[in-house]
């Protein structure tokens, strides 16, 4: 019986273009120190990470692209801790959520938030003015969301803005399904109250289409 040549997966796929490899293979190659594989992972999962951060932090956060870089920096540092139990995308998205949470907490405590507060108040004050220009409704909703607790805010954002299902949300937040559902329900109620307090009367479906510039 002759000696069998052991072919490692990384050697086997060494000559394959990273863009043609599956995510698992890319992760394995990145764990072995292949920078090209990690860059491919970055380009592949950049859009979901940007979307998650945009939904969580709102339109007033200018540093989303920096946060994406930070997210992938953390992923790169902790790549050896990724065991491959779940999908790489979910792992990166969880890092992004944690970063967004800490950034949100830091900016709320910052003294600079007192500095630009009048502009934010003015932006929120007029609900129907210049809808297409700077997303005032989104500003207002995020202003209302800021009054909610962190758990309720995150549940509402993930369910309503990002459109995750309850199952995905419960796995993302690490809570039972019913807890996630109850958080969404309570968050919605509180948000509705906050919006009404800011002068946003309940809007019917036809007005939504009108605000979006769609024909009725």
């Amino acid at each position, binding site marked *: 019986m002759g000696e069998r040549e052991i072919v490692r997966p990384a050697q086997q796929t060494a000559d394959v273009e990273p863009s043609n490899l599956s995510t698992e293979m890319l992760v394995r190659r990145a764990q072995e120190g292949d920078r090209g594989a990690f860059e491919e992972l970055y380009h592949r999962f*950049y859009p979901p990470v940007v979307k998650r951060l945009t939904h969580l932090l709102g339109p007033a956060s200018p540093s989303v692209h920096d946060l994406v870089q930070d997210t992938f920096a953390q992923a790169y540092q902790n790549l050896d801790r990724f065991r491959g139990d779940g999908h790489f995308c979910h792992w990166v998205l969880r890092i992004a959520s944690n970063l967004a949470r800490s950034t949100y907490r830091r900016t709320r405590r910052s003294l600079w938030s007192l500095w630009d507060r009048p502009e934010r108040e003015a932006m929120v004050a007029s609900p129907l003015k210049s809808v297409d220009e700077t997303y005032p409704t989104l500003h207002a909703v995020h202003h209302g969301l800021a009054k909610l607790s962190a758990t309720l805010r995150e549940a509402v954002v993930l369910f309503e803005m990002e459109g995750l299902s309850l199952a995905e949300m419960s796995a993302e937040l690490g809570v039972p399904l019913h807890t996630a559902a109850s958080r969404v329900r309570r968050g919605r109620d509180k948000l509705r109250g906050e919006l009404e307090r800011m002068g946003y009367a309940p809007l019917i479906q036809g007005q939504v289409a009108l605000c979006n510039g769609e024909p009725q």
Partner: protein
Amino acid sequence: MNEQIPLLHPGASRREARTKIPQERSGWLELARQQSQKLARTRSQFTPPLRWDRLEQAPARWRRLSWAVALLPLLIVGGATGTWAFVTHLQTRQPDPVAAPLITPLGQTPRRAVAPRRRPAVPTKVKEQVPVPPKPRRTVRPRQTTAAAPVETAREETQQEEQKVEQVPSTEPQRVIFGTSDAPAEPAIIVSPPAKMRPLWTPEAFKKKGMSRIRWGW
């Protein structure tokens, strides 16, 4: 490569169907959802290149931060100890003879005052506790009607009163002559401060104002 990302929790869809979540959204929330999706789509259209310098600097940044966090308590403790030591040094040091005030007789060059020598510490005497004998009780005597005081006694009393009046220190500048009687020095003018400080409180003021108002001066 278009890869289908699996659901995080694939078995839960049936349970989700049983969970009651009202599907109707408020209009503003629906509008915000559409705007948020539009914004996210706009932001994700362009993918900037991965910044490797940021990836490599991140651990160094954390290392620097951890050093700062470790050194911060040392700095705080060191600063507090230094302040305490300086204040203690200021409180216990000897008066500087060079910085002592000058006595300047009129028309002469100033001379430095000699630093006062500290009196050597005298061991405190422990007073023995001797039982004090009780005071003899005064016997009340009936008052005697006496004649008027002699003239000499009255004169002495008036002289004493006059002396008392003279002893009241004045706030006017005084001329004092230093030196001995054989070789008197040039006279010097001493501007004396008010001899007697105003009392902090008097019973009359206490009755009128009360303690707190006297203390805070209103």
